């Protein structure tokens, strides 16, 4: 669901300004981590960013709405947290330019997409010790998708709470609010589950492929002991 980008001017300013500041801080911090990144690293992270965008651009007709995949899980695993956050930011900026998600909410969209994706590597790190690497990729992808969705809903909920109540709101009954919340969940939950399933399946196939063809790219693999996914990569991914 993280792909459902929040547009400009809907959420209250307090929420998106906070998001923007947090995301900018995140970009600066991640840039400090990737300062020594060689050209190979930048090319790799851009290729994966491009892949995220390209995949998002292909609608998969699953429900009434065209659902789009993000590949955030595998990208997070392949890149490690710092680069993943940058990629999420870059992808969000380009989508905003293309009218998918707004400028003012670049911060929020980055955080929703990025935090989910960033969670994939640590979760994978834990799982990979217990199971085959492709399965670990699939599961951590599911986790990152769920996290993104939870964040997305949290943003929505926080915004509802924080948006200034107008005179009309006072009249709206409490039970109506609950009904609205219920309707929203009923609408989104099935979509969300299908999305998680599709993403994880795709991640599984991708991981199977990489495991056979470029095992060095998946952390924790043959040459992954050194952690160097890409020659000349930034020190951050080795941590």
């Amino acid at each position, binding site marked *: 669901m993280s792909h459902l980008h929040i547009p400009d001017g809907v959420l209250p300013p307090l929420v998106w300004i906070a998001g923007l500041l947090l995301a900018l801080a995140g970009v600066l911090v991640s840039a400090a981590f990737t300062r020594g990144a060689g050209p190979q690293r930048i090319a790799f992270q851009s290729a994966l960013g491009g892949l995220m965008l390209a995949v998002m651009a292909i609608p998969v007709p699953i429900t009434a709405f065209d659902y789009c995949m993000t590949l955030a899980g595998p990208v997070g695993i392949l890149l490690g947290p710092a680069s993943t956050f940058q990629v999420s930011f870059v992808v969000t900026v380009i989508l905003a330019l293309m009218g998918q998600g707004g400028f003012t909410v670049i911060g929020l969209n980055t955080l929703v997409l990025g935090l989910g994706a960033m969670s994939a590597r640590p979760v994978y790190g834990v799982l990979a010790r217990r199971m085959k690497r492709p399965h670990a990729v699939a599961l951590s992808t599911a986790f990152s998708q769920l996290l993104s969705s939870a964040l997305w809903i949290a943003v929505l909920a926080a915004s509802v709470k924080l948006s200034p109540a107008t005179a009309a709101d006072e009249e709206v009954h409490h039970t109506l609010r609950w009904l609205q919340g219920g309707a929203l969940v009923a609408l989104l939950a099935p979509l969300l589950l299908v999305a998680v399933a599709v993403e994880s399946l795709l991640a599984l196939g991708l991981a199977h*492929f990489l495991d*056979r*063809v*470029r095992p060095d790219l998946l952390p924790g693999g043959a040459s992954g002991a050194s952690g160097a996914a890409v020659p000349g990569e930034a020190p951050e991914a080795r941590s």
Partner: protein
Amino acid sequence: MSEPIVHVSCVRHTYPDRTSVHLCGLDFVVEKGQRVVILGPNGCGKSTLLYHILGLLAPQEGDVQVFGADPAKHFSKIRERVGVLLQNADEQIIAPTVYDDVSFSPRNYGYTDAEVGEKVSVALRKVGIEHLAHKVCHYLSGGEKRKVALAGALVLEPELLVLDEPFEGLDPASRNDIVDLLNRLNREHGVSLVVATHDVQLVQPLADKVYVLKRGGEILAQGPPAEIFRDVELLKRTNIEAPVLAELFQVLESRGVDLGRPENVEAAVKVLLARMGAAKP
């Protein structure tokens, strides 16, 4: 040798940026067992023509028939009978290892494992890459990748092979290997060939019939290679060059020494020696 299996007449395709390719002039016809080469300048519409034959583009005007069907509508009916190698062969490789990739189509058509294994090993043997069966495709050299893609195209024993610039980027020995392979398939299995290429040196050994396109898609001429390469005016208009031997004997003829049009170096040496010998006392 005279039943037409491909027939394209006056097809037009307009790309989104309004570039229009109008494949008209002559009809494009491939008969059963024929080896057809398509020549023409860059951007004349060779690939566009092949895409129509493969049902990847639907004609906006005109008519395409392959094995009696309209490929844009019913390609699935004829797909098993057509093998394909597109311009960037390595982009046709889908599965991680050579065996996986070559077995891709038969598995999709629901053959049993035993049949698949049988078919794959025949295809690998034909192309001469049995030793690569369990290699990872990604690490193969350009020429090897092309052979893998070719094995994938051959595995269902197609009656028609459609190849878009199969020689690009290959070293001369590999080119000859592929020409020999194609000719063997044609001779022994009656496979018909449609090949688009810029390598004029390979046209004589490979083609029964040549089609020449000019910019915009017009089909200007067709005929056996020797005849096409004799038409200097035509070649000039379509950015094609005669192969060196054809040119040499063309010039000799124009200087009053008509020795015919030998097709390869061996034949050329023979006529030259004969002529020199004959001229001796």
